[in-house]
């Protein structure tokens, strides 16, 4: 009897020859290994702006599945420590992975009794290392990340980080469609770092609300429900959830008839 189970049920060796082990050991011939990654469930833009005493940041609650608006309750603003919030766009499974990684980081940091609390710049540094490491393994975390908070010098901190491991800082930041549509609006309020000193919390918040409205008008992967966070170096983090895009202008649609100026009805 043949004692190797692998050979059971196979055509007779005498007729067909031995099993060709190159078959079971075969690799994909074109590439040695492949991470066929693409985002599946996705979140769209995150937008943020600095003001005199802190930062205002917002992201909507939609989880898209291609063009399907599949999940309507995704929270993409993630608080880390006492004065940092990470805003994440891109793949939601990777967002949840980053959420877990940050939680683990926090637990490890608290082993010695929370004597060295995290600051925003530390979180940013960590995320950059994580994202860069993954892109270098050709297996990127499919996200663009905005880190907003207070840094070690007790100043507002705002920095961007993405799937390529690219990082940069600016008084206004936005990912995805926001980089095209919101940045010009936000820069009207704070163009350069020195402008930030003259921007009030109210002005910053208003600019963000305005930008969320424009994004809802023009981003086909956006929703009208969003979360907004204000991180103030004196008063800390305040979250506003379940906000709705307001004061939209649609009435003028009535006056649009046909596609030229000839049609009367």
């Amino acid at each position, binding site marked *: 009897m043949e004692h190797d189970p692998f050979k059971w049920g196979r055509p007779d060796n005498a007729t067909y*020859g*031995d099993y*060709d082990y190159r*078959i079971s050991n*075969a690799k994909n011939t074109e590439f040695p290994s492949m991470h066929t*990654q693409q985002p599946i469930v996705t979140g769209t833009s995150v937008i943020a702006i600095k003001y005199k005493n802190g930062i205002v940041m917002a992201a909507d609650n939609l989880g898209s599945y291609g063009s*399907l608006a599949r*999940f309507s309750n995704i929270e993409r603003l993630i608080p880390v420590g006492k004065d940092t919030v990470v805003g994440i766009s891109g*793949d939601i*499974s990777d967002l949840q992975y980053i959420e877990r990684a940050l939680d683990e980081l926090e637990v490890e940091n608290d082993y010695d009794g929370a004597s060295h609390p995290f600051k925003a710049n530390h979180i940013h540094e960590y995320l950059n290392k994580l994202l860069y490491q993954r892109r270098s393994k050709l297996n990127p975390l499919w996200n663009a990340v905005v880190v907003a908070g207070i840094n070690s010098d007790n100043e507002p901190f705002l920095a961007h980080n993405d799937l390529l491991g690219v990082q940069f800082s600016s008084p206004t930041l936005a990912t995805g469609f926001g980089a095209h549509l919101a940045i010009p609006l936000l820069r009207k309020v704070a163009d350069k770092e020195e402008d930030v000193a003259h921007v009030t919390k109210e002005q910053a918040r208003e600019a963000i609300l305005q930008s969320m409205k424009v994004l809802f008008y023009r981003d086909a992967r956006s929703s009208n429900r969003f979360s907004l966070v204000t991180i103030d170096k004196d008063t800390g983090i305040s979250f506003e959830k379940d906000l709705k895009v307001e004061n939209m202008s649609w009435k003028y649609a009535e006056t649009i008839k046909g596609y030229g100026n000839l049609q009367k009805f």
Partner: protein
Amino acid sequence: MNGVSVDINHLKKGEVNLGTSIMAVTFKDGVILGADSRTTTGAYIANRVTDKLTQVYDKIWCCRSGSAADTQAITDIVRSYLTYQVGSDNFERPASVNVAASIFQELCYNNKDNLTAGIICAGYDEEKQQGEVYSIPIGGSIHKQDFAIAGSGSGFIYGYCNENFRKNMTRDETVNFIRKSLGQAIKWDGSSGGVIRMIVLTKAGIERLIFYPEETYLVPKEFEIPQAA
């Protein structure tokens, strides 16, 4: 080469797929899972009476969509985790739906490059005394929901389900809701079909329901595709 030649890529292409309509809905007393029964290999119906509702722990079940082989393997692993790891510790309480769904999520996320699996994990949580539904789409994210729909047929019923779902429905209302929803999905999706199977999970226990095409959900009038006059 004298050996039998096997085209590995071809095997992958002809893989058995659960082009599917599945859903799970929480209600007053627990949760109900529902699924069609069609399994296809390309356009050929490999199995017309498939059971896509699979038990992973007493009152934790899942609906599988995507590759049949992948989802069965994942389900088997989750079942063994729950049975041997959680169940064997005498001080541990029955596995929670959350934990089961989390294990599904971890497996789907870590092996996303090699899996085609869209899973709804639903169950009756004995501790919280309520039904819970978790959606784990391909990619391996996890989403807790009041009700979830998935599979190729679900695309046709997002509107219907969203309009007709209510929280805390009765058992009969929920069964009807699922029957009508899946009926529509089967009607419009060529990859869904056969009977509608359901599993009702409540404090009282586990109940299986089945609905046949000609008797219940495919009444002739409904099956007619509206034509332009």
